[in-house]
């Protein structure tokens, strides 16, 4: 820190070593975001393959094994390679800027937590080219199917270990930064809501990533060292894995969505020109969602045959989550109420988020009802549900955040017309893609099948057409970003009329080092 203070005002080093050795939160944030973008396009291409095969009944362009590999890698990469690193990118860029800190608390660990990610990505991609192909069990990795697989299954376990280590390091960094490096005067209850949501997310990550690591390590020893954790013939239980996995997996879905709540809670007040309606209740709602997330895992397992008491408990606990989630939605709407609204691209994506995420929330409530879930479990209804919360939820929030801060990061205004095209095309094609899948699931189409009975043809075709449109629309985002990096109208320090917060007090783009002297917060 002292060294930096003395060379005040120096810019970024040049060349590749800048990126390899950087300890600068802005550089690391940028790398996280590019990595997430690349992984998003890669896993998106896999989704295009899935929708192409499902365009018609019959096997057309791939084998069933390869189809299963695509669904698995699509899920794993989107969760661990796209959404989580994108959120980590926002955390790196924005948390120091929003709390008035000069950088993250552990800059060198920050470099490391990013640079081990490509190693994990390489292991996952490599696993497609080993004998037998990639993991084909779905991203949930259930044994005993997982035990049957080839060498790629071990590669995937190592990839998951590395991804987990990266997340834990990033979380330690974020927690330490937030708790210790806030500008004078910024009390906890004055922190921007995005910072709050990330603080809570980081605690969730530290709590559950070791659980996932334990679960996959048990898979590894079952596969290679003769243990029988999940093998009934050796005294184990295949369902044990599901309990451990979902004890990680349910908090994990909130890890993906809580920072998204933070992003949307930042964007909506800006374009409503009105403070967030219930700041403290939003903080409490976030915390209660996080706590509840540890108590509801087995609602992913309503068909494994739990006792009546188990079905009842997990149903009640899961239904409770609707309360704090409802509080959030009501607060966003109340924030917009009697504001002075404008609809730049970030706001469009935020409104898209609120309305579409809520549909995902409602279907989540339907799925929480254990007796109904008996019919819905493992069908396309579930696929539609979690894409409503993860695509029109997490992804739309990421888009809102990217458009919101892109002028700040690049120093240039992005192309608003293209941005709006991107929103409207995404919004429409997303619904064409996923809405019919609710009907498919109820009509009886299981998920993760490469071929289907004839009565599912029409909705699958509609869904595939929406899928190709959605995929193509995302290229617009890439164009907008590249344009904004290369030039465009100069952005002011305070890009948006209604924007609040410390990040708007520094220039756009911000100097390489910011807040070397802590700002005062009143």
């Amino acid at each position: 820190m002292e060294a930096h203070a003395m060379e005040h005002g120096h810019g970024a080093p040049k060349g590749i070593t800048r990126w390899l050795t950087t300890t600068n939160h802005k550089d690391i944030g940028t790398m996280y975001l590019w990595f997430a973008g690349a992984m998003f396009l890669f896993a998106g291409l896999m989704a295009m393959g899935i929708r192409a095969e499902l365009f018609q009944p019959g096997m057309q362009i791939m084998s069933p094994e390869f189809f299963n590999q695509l669904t698995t890698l699509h899920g794993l990469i989107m969760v661990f390679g796209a959404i989580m690193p994108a959120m980590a990118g926002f955390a790196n860029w924005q948390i120091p800027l929003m709390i008035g800190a000069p950088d993250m608390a552990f800059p060198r660990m920050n470099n490391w937590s990013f640079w081990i990610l490509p190693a994990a990505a390489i292991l996952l991609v490599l696993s497609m080219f080993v004998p037998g192909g990639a993991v084909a069990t779905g991203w949930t990795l259930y044994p005993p199917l997982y035990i049957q697989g080839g060498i790629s299954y071990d590669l995937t376990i190592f990839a998951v270990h590395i991804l987990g280590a990266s997340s834990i390091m990033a979380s330690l960094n974020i927690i330490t930064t937030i708790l210790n490096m806030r500008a004078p005067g910024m009390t906890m209850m004055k922190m921007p809501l995005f910072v709050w949501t990330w603080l809570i997310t980081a605690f969730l990550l530290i709590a559950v990533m070791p659980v996932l690591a334990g679960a996959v390590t048990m898979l590894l020893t079952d596969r290679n060292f003769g243990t029988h954790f999940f093998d009934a013939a050796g005294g184990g239980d295949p369902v044990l894995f599901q309990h451990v996995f979902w004890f990680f997996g349910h908090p994990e879905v909130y890890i993906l969505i809580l920072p998204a709540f933070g992003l949307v809670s930042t964007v909506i007040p800006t374009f409503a020109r009105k403070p967030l309606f219930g700041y403290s209740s939003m903080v409490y709602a976030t915390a209660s969602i996080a706590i509840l997330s540890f108590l509801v895992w087995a609602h992913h397992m309503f068909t494994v045959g739990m006792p009546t008491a188990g079905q009842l408990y997990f149903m009640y606990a899961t239904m409770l989550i609707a309360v704090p989630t409802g509080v959030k939605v009501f607060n966003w709407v109340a924030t917009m109420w009697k504001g002075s609204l404008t609809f730049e691209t970030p706001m469009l994506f935020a409104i898209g988020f609120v309305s579409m995420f809520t549909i995902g929330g409602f279907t989540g409530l339907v799925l929480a009802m254990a007796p109904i879930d008996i019919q819905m479990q493992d069908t396309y209804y579930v696929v539609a549900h979690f894409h409503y919360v993860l695509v029109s939820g997490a992804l739309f929030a990421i888009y809102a955040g990217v458009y919101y801060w892109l002028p700040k990061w690049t120093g240039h205004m992005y192309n608003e017309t293209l941005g709006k095209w991107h929103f409207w095309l995404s919004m429409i094609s997303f619904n064409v893609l996923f809405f019919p899948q609710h009907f498919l699931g109820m009509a009886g189409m299981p998920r993760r099948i490469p071929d289907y009975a004839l009565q599912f043809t029409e909705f699958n075709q509609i869904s595939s057409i929406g899928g190709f449109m959605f995929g193509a629309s995302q290229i617009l985002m890439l164009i907008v970003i590249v344009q904004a990096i290369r030039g465009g109208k100069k952005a002011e320090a305070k890009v948006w009329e209604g924007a609040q917060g410390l990040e708007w007090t520094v220039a756009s783009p911000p100097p390489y080092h910011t807040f070397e002297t802590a700002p005062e917060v009143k």
Partner: protein
Amino acid sequence: MGHRRPLPVVLATLLAGLAFPALADYQLNFPPPKTGLAQQIYDLNVLVMWICVGIFIVVFGAMFYAIWKHRKSVGHKAEQFHESTTVEIIWTTIPFLILVGMAWPATKLIIEQKDTSNPDVTVKITGYQWKWEYDYLQDGVKFMSVLSTPRDQIENKAAKGANYLLEVDEPMVVPVGKKVRMLFTANDVIHAWWVPALGIKQDAIPGFIRDAWFTANEVGTYRGQCAELCGKDHGFMPIVVEVKSEADYKAWLEAKKAKAVAAAADAGKVFGKDELMARGATVYNANCASCHMPNGAGIPGAFPAITGSKIATGAKEGHIAMALNGKPGTAMPAFGPQLNDADIAAVVTYQRNGLGNSTGDLVQPADVKALRK
């Protein structure tokens, strides 16, 4: 059915009927329920859905009103109000009460779903990669149920039939109006037995027994699929349940028993080569071809070839033992418990003298019997 349909159900049916008069393929809801459980699930889902639609309209009506009226472009000035404990309490309490209202009928239904006591018929259902076995414990009838859609239809070389991928060689048969209890387990990986019209989905877990029940209230054929990803042919292990009248069910049981007696007689027979090869081809296509491929070439890296393999061209005892006991830790199951001696003799003969192999030796049921543990 005797179950009163709530108003929303009637409305939904009416709406769906208006929107899609002749397009049955744009089905918007569950298939018509054929058991009391499925009917209750259907009704509960419709109820919850309409509650959600109602909330959606109120909340997003407010949001879109704001979007319309409180725009900057129409000159609306932002009011700076925020924080109201009263409002927060109201919108915490009302959803909670709605949830309690929804949980009440759901609780009753869960308790009913879990009550598998006093069944009239008990069937043990075992999931295999990728077929189902039905074992009528009281009657000693046991058989495999395999996808019967021809491969040509899947590979788009032939026109697809009406029940494409939802048809099997031997359906499960149950009597109408009787409580059927099913015991589920699996032989290899986790499967899930799902028939939407019956309202049953239950995972079949290797090494454990789970149960579920239904009482079908209408004679008919109901179709479903495996719902838990279980390997490459997960999409190709359908379930067909035929609900028959009591008399038809009894007749079916008797025919099944007679067939089993005939099959037992095969065990002592000595077959000619043509007989073994013909029967072996049938057994091969039903049990082996999905991994080892119809031509025996396997899938490199995943499933070994039969053609030219050390086992299929080596000593026949090793080959029979592989078929009987499988290879632990791989996808190769033990077929000993699934197939009778004559079937295994036939399929081993077929693999040794077809699919590009020509060892010239025949395997008889007695050879298989000798190697059974």
